[in-house]
Structures are given as structure tokens and as C-alpha cells.
């Protein structure tokens, strides 16, 4: 009896709590809530937001978060259906599909996408609507040590054969010849360009094909290079481990995303003189020359926004041409075509970045990972194949079977999400 009473008491108390929530008074001044990432672009926006507020009379409540926290927070808030977020930064390749499928982005039918490369907009498109404004791009490059190349009398490699020869020649005196991410899931994005250059793909028409002979050859090559010439423990290294190795001068070549350029030459963060650091395009493979070039960040609007007009106004301002140029002048590579054509930008930005971007924009492939809702799980699965290849220096006899097994598992994930096959 007592228990029943207690339950009733709890129930009635919680009812009272809910009832109170329903009678909330609407606010007078227009206010929006914006979630930014800890990213140089987010930092730039923060300094400019007061200007926007003065100009528009809209109050902007913003907070910035580290990217995985941002994803978790957005997911939690949207999943409960009571999010108060209006505009947010988002990673199209990581969460875009899932968010679109769940209807969390508002369609951006009035936004003018003419200034963007069409394949960058297509990633955030479903049906006739686009949902994500592409903001920031990155592409794969090769950082190398000019001084070490000069000492060894070597030229910068332009194909994979030369790359392997250079890695061999430069591995000496405690310096590793070649480095790239080896840590399973994290390595998936960096391996992608190698697979493309060998003529393979992760997904072909939404079917996992990374067990094809071409892809396997690429995985073996990647594993051989890293296993033989990579820094010690490379199979557990991601960018945050490899960058210090390069910055302390223990790595001659490093292939990773263009986004690290600033930190590699910043003299407060690196022990090697900036003049000794070169940046080149990823060498060609036997069957292709397509480094990835992806939209690493975009901006979206919540479909639950209570202030869609104010939110749209903010979105248009934050992704405007002028803002893109400002960002480019801070070495943040933007997706807008006009920003790359801007004369001030071309004069100020590092020529290595401009050249490699031009090459990637022309030849590159717009995905650096399997583009699917369960991308996290798929990356873990592919990661196991990569680690097996690195640990055996690319010689593992189990590799084809392992890759086939993981490809099947990725296909199962695709099927479970209703994304298998089709276009």
C-alpha cells in the first residue's frame, strides 16, 4: 500500500513539473542559438558575431565545442526532438547522411549555391533539396623535408614507385622515410587516395568494394610503406601522433590532409625551419591521380528552428563571399569558388596550398571515407584490414579473406540502414 502511495506521489509531482513547462511565455527580441566547432573558422566567426548582431538586431547565443562533442550534443538534442539549436557547423561526410535521413537539417531551398563546386553541394543533397552549405575543404597532400631531399640528391616523388624509392633512401639516422596514419579507423581517410590511385574505391554505387584486387593492392602498398619505412608504432598513430614526429624532424615525408600546413611551419610549434618544409601533391598511382578533396565542414540549419528567418539570415551572413575571403586570408581553405579566385588571397596564401588545391579540385575525388550513415562502424571494420597490412608489411596471406569478410560486414551495415545498392 505504502509503495502505491509513493508511486502516486512521484507521478503527481512529475506531472506538475511538466505542466509548468508548457506555459512558457514567448520572448520578444529575436534570438538564435548557434553551435560552432573549435575550428579556426569558428574562431573567426566569434570575433565577427557582434557586427552581425549590431547590423541585424538578432541576438546570437553561441557556444563552441570540440568536434566529437559537437556531434554528440547535436545528436542528443535532435534525437529528443526538443533541441533549441538554430544554426550549427556540421561535418557532411561524418554525420550528413544520418542527419538528412532523420530530417534534422532544414532544406535550404532559397540559398544560392551557384558559387560552390556542384559535387560539394551534392554531398548534402537529397531529392531536390540541398541541406548543407559547404564551408571548408581539405585535400590530401604530401609534406616533405626539402633539406633531407637535397642531402640525398632526390627529387620530390611524382609516382608511387618513386615514393617507395625515396622512402627507402630517406630512412636513416633515426629518421623515418615515410609516415601516414596507421591507426585503423583514423587511417581510412588517408588510405582513400591510395586506393583511388590504384583504381579502387571503398564503395561503388553503395556496395562495398574495398576487397577488389585494385583496392587490395593499394592496401598492401600502404602497409608495405608504413610497415617498412614508417616510424615505430605507426600502426597506432593518427595525425596527432604523426605531426609531432614530423615537427621534431624525425620524418622525411608525411601524407595527410592539407589542414595541417599551418602547424607544420609555425615556428612556435615546430622544431624544423619553415624553409625546410615543402608541400606537394600526392604522387600518382599506377591507375589514377585522384587525391581526395572533401568538404570537411559545412553549415546547416535545424529543421526545428523556431526562428527560421533569423537563422537563415545568420547562415547567409556566416557563409557569405566576404566571410570566405576573410577566412582564406587566414589560410582557411574555403569551398566557395570565388574565394579561390580572389587576387588578395592568391597573393597571400602559400603557393604549395594553391597548387595542390588546383590539382585536387581538377582531378580529385570528393569522398575520403565510405559515405554512409554507419560510417563510424565501417571505418572500424576497414581499419582492421589496414592494421593487418601494416603489421605484415603488406605481405599477409590472410588479407584478401579479411578484406572480403569486412566488405561483407560493411554491406550488411548498408543493408540495415536501407542504403545498399542503387545510385
Amino acid at each position, binding site marked *: 500500500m505504502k509503495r502505491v502511495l509513493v508511486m502516486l506521489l512521484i507521478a503527481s509531482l512529475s506531472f506538475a*513539473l*511538466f505542466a*509548468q*513547462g*508548457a506555459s*512558457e511565455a514567448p520572448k520578444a527580441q529575436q534570438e538564435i542559438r548557434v553551435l560552432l*566547432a*573549435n*575550428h*579556426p573558422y*569558428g574562431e573567426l566567426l566569434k570575433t565577427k558575431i557582434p557586427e552581425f548582431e549590431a547590423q541585424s538586431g538578432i541576438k546570437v*547565443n*553561441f*557556444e*563552441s*565545442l*570540440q*568536434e566529437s*562533442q559537437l556531434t*554528440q*550534443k547535436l545528436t*542528443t*538534442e535532435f*534525437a*529528443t*526532438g*526538443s*533541441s*533549441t539549436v538554430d544554426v550549427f557547423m556540421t561535418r557532411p561526410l561524418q554525420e550528413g547522411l544520418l542527419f538528412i535521413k532523420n530530417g534534422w537539417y532544414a532544406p535550404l531551398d532559397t540559398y544560392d549555391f551557384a558559387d560552390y563546386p556542384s559535387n560539394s553541394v551534392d554531398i548534402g543533397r537529397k531529392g531536390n533539396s540541398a541541406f548543407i552549405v559547404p564551408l571548408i575543404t581539405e585535400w590530401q597532400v604530401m609534406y616533405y623535408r626539402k633539406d633531407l631531399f637535397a642531402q640525398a640528391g632526390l627529387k620530390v616523388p611524382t609516382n608511387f614507385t618513386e615514393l617507395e624509392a625515396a622512402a627507402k633512401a630517406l630512412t636513416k639516422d633515426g629518421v623515418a622515410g615515410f609516415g601516414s596514419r596507421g591507426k585503423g579507423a583514423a587511417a581510412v581517410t588517408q588510405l582513400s587516395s591510395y586506393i583511388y590511385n590504384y583504381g579502387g574505391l571503398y564503395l561503388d554505387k553503395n556496395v562495398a568494394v574495398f576487397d577488389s584486387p585494385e583496392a587490395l593492392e593499394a592496401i598492401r602498398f600502404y602497409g608495405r610503406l608504413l610497415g617498412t619505412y614508417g616510424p615505430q608504432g605507426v600502426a597506432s598513430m593518427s*595525425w*596527432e601522433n604523426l605531426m*609531432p614526429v614530423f*615537427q*621534431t624532424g*624525425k620524418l622525411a615525408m608525411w601524407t595527410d*590532409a592539407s*589542414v*595541417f600546413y599551418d*602547424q607544420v611551419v609555425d615556428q*612556435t*610549434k*615546430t*622544431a624544423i625551419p619553415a624553409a625546410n618544409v615543402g608541400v606537394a601533391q600526392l604522387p600518382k598511382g599506377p591507375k589514377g591521380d585522384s587525391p581526395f578533396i572533401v568538404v*570537411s*565542414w559545412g553549415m546547416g540549419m535545424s529543421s526545428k528552428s523556431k526562428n527560421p528567418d533569423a537563422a537563415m539570415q545568420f547562415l547567409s551572413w556566416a557563409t557569405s563571399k566576404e566571410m570566405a575571403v576573410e577566412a582564406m586570408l587566414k589560410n582557411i581553405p574555403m569551398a566557395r569558388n570565388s574565394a579561390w579566385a580572389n587576387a588578395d588571397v592568391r597573393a597571400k596564401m602559400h603557393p604549395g596550398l594553391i597548387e595542390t588545391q588546383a590539382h585536387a579540385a581538377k582531378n580529385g575525388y570528393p569522398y575520403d571515407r565510405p559515405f554512409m550513415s554507419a560510417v563510424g562502424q565501417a571505418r572500424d571494420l576497414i581499419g582492421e584490414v589496414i592494421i593487418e597490412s601494416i603489421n605484415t608489411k603488406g605481405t599477409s596471406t590472410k588479407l584478401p579473406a579479411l578484406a572480403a569478410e569486412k566488405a561483407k560486414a560493411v554491406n550488411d551495415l548498408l543493408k540495415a540502414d536501407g542504403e545498399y545498392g542503387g545510385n
Partner: protein
Amino acid sequence: MKQSLRFRIGFPLLVLIIIIPMIFPFLWMFMSAFKTQVDIISWPPKFLFSPTMVNFNKVFNEQNFLLYLKNSMIVGVGSVAISLLLGLPAAYSIARFHQKRLSVMILIARLMPGISFLMPWYIVFSRLGLMDSYTALILSHILIALPVVVWIMSSYFESVPLEMEESAMVDGATMQRAFVSIILPLSVPGIVTATTLSFIFSWNNFMFSQVLSMEKTRTLPIAVYNFMSYAEVDWGGVMAAAVAIMTPAIILTMVFQKYVVKGLTMGAVKG
């Protein structure tokens, strides 16, 4: 004599072997907080370097660290105070009337993955307009603090002889009076233990604050991530922030250490 010499050399050596693995990460963190980025990544590691205050400057001047510190304090103190208020009588009742099932239920609440509470909380708090408020954070942190209080204190109360209470009641005190005037004063070491531990758990909690707090109520563990951005980790900043976060917790623990050990063993032996 021979054995004693061996002991005199061997014992400190053994202590060192045990202590070094524990103390080294702290030492490393502490040193890195005073290093530049270049010194932090240098190989072989530098043990002699010219210290810099750049990292602490970033923590306290460029970031709103004092605000985060205040937030963590308010949330920690608030949730622990409420947990004591509710938890002490609960623990007493569990101890005296052997309500084992109730105590197991409280433990289950603690054992459940915290993330399973987050969605309902988010819905409730956002409907109530309590997002970004101390109320929401304190209420959520009670889930962390209350079970600790109840579990430590119920075994502690069991160790207080029943006769104490009975003699008070013979003298005319009610059970409530006996609890407040006799049992509680006798249990100070246990209460201090429970307070310290639950405060530290709340202080370090990341998940609840991450979802339920926003810019105004952001707590310290979340703020550490301000130094990690896309494609860049400011290790010096992270280390300096970690030092700043740990210092209050370490001081608190050092001050109350003897109680903590006593309180824990009391519970362990007699519980």
C-alpha cells in the same frame, strides 16, 4: 644487522618502484604545463627547460576559466549538499532497518550507464526552460553524488553501536533527535569521506555537463576540450588546464585524507 641493511636499501627502492609509475604522469603533466609546444614534443624528452607561463596565461586570460571554475564549484557544492541532506537519513534508515533492496536500487541507478539518463533529462529540462541553468546541472549531478553518500554512510552507520542510540532514547530523545544529536556527530569521519568522494566525482563528471550545460554554465572538464580543436591539439593548454582543475581536488583530498582512509576502512570492515 645484515638483514636490516638490506631492508634499509630495499624498502625505499621498492617504494620508488611502486611510486614512479603512479607519479610520473602527474609529473609529466605538471612539467608540460610550463613548456612551449616545441619543448613538449621534443625528442628525447626535455627534463631541463626554461619554463613559460604562456599556457597558464591562455587558461586564465584568454579562456573564461574562472567562470568555469565557479560553475564547477556551484554544481559540486550544490549537488553534494543536497545529496547529504537526502542521503544521510536514507543511509541511516537503510542501516537501521536493513532495507537491502532499497540500497540495491540506489546502486543500480549508479551502475546504469549515465548516457541512458541524458535523453529524458534533456527533454524534461528543455521543456522546463532549465537548459543552461545550475538547477539542471545540480539535479543531474545528484545522481552521481547521492549513491556514493548512501553507500558509504549506510555501512558507516551500521558500525555505530545501537546502544548509543538506545541510551539516548532512554533519556527521552526521539529517534530523529538521536540521529541528529548522537549518530551524526559520531559519524563525522564517514561524512567527510562521503563528501570528498562525491564532490570529486561531481567535479570530474564530463558527460552530464556536456549535454546539459551551455556557455554560461560550462564546467571545467568540458573546458579542457577548448584546447582541442579540429586538427590541432594545444597540449600545453590542455596540461595547464588539467593542472588548474586538479589543484582544488588535490588540496581537498590532502586536507581530508586521514578521514577518507578512516571512513573507507570503517565501512569496509564493518559493512
